[in-house]
C-alpha cells in the first residue's frame, strides 16, 4: 500500500472526526451542512476504493509523534 493510499484512509477518519466530533461550544458553527455533504461526496470514491485497493494493512499514525 502506498503512502498516498494510507493518507486517503486517514482522510476518511479525519473528515469523520473533524466534522462529526469535537466539543460544540457555540451554537453557530459556520460550516454549512451542504459543505459537509460536499466533502463526503468527494470522499465517496476514496471510501469505496479502500475495499479494492486495500490489502490487509495496519496503519501507523498519520501526523506528528506522540
Amino acid at each position, binding site marked *: 500500500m502506498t503512502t498516498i493510499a494510507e493518507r486517503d484512509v*486517514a482522510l476518511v477518519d479525519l473528515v*469523520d*472526526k473533524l466534522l462529526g466530533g469535537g*466539543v460544540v*461550544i*457555540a451554537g453557530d*458553527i459556520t460550516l454549512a451542512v451542504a459543505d459537509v455533504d460536499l*466533502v463526503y461526496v468527494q470522499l465517496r470514491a476514496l471510501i*469505496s476504493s479502500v475495499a479494492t485497493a486495500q490489502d490487509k*494493512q495496519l496503519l501507523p499514525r498519520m501526523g506528528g509523534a506522540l
Partner: protein
Amino acid sequence: MIELYAITDDPGPPLPDVAGLRLVPFDGLAAVYTPASDAELSPETLWRHEEVVEALMADRDVLPVRYGTRLEDEAAVAHAVGERRDELAAALDRVRGAVELSVRVVPAREAPRPPDHGETRSGADYLRVRALAEAGRSEAAHALQEPLAALARATTEGRPRPPELFRAAYLVERGAVDSFVAVVARLQGANPALAILCTGPWPPYSFADR
C-alpha cells in the same frame, strides 16, 4: 472573526509556534484560537486544522473543538467558555492523558474464497454461499470489538458506511497505544478475510462531547 481549535488547561506549556496560535484564558481553562481564515473546505484545510490540534496535543491534554467553530472576538470566546466552564473542565478531565485511535474494518481485497462443495453451481447456491461468507466476515469484524475495547478507557461505535463492516473509536491512554497497535496486528493476522484500518493517535474528537 476567530476560529477555535481546542480547550486546554491554563496555565499550560507555551503554545507551539504554528499558525499564530493565541489563547483566551478562563478560570483554569484556555481556548486556543487563530484568526479565522477564508480557506475553502478541502482535505488540505482539514489537515492543516488537524496539524494544529496535534501540535497542541504533543505536550498537553486537549479537548478538541468542533471544526468550523467561529466567534466574533476574544470576549465572545470568554463568554461562550464561561457559560459551560464546569462542563468543559469535566470533559477535559475525561480525556486527560489519552488519545483516540480509530478502527474501521472492510473486507480484504482478496478475501479467501468460500469452500466450493463441487455441486454449488447454480446461481442460487452461489448467492447462498456468498451470503454465508459475508455474514461470517461481518461477525468476525464485530468480534474484534471486545479485545480492542479491553484496552480502551472508553469506546464509541459508529455506523459503518459500505463497504465497511465495523467502525469504532477508542480512547486509549497514551502509554497504551503501542499495546493497542500490537493487538490490532495480532487480530489482523488472525483474520485474513478482513482489512483492519487503524489510524491515530488522534485528538479525542469522538470523546469530547459525551
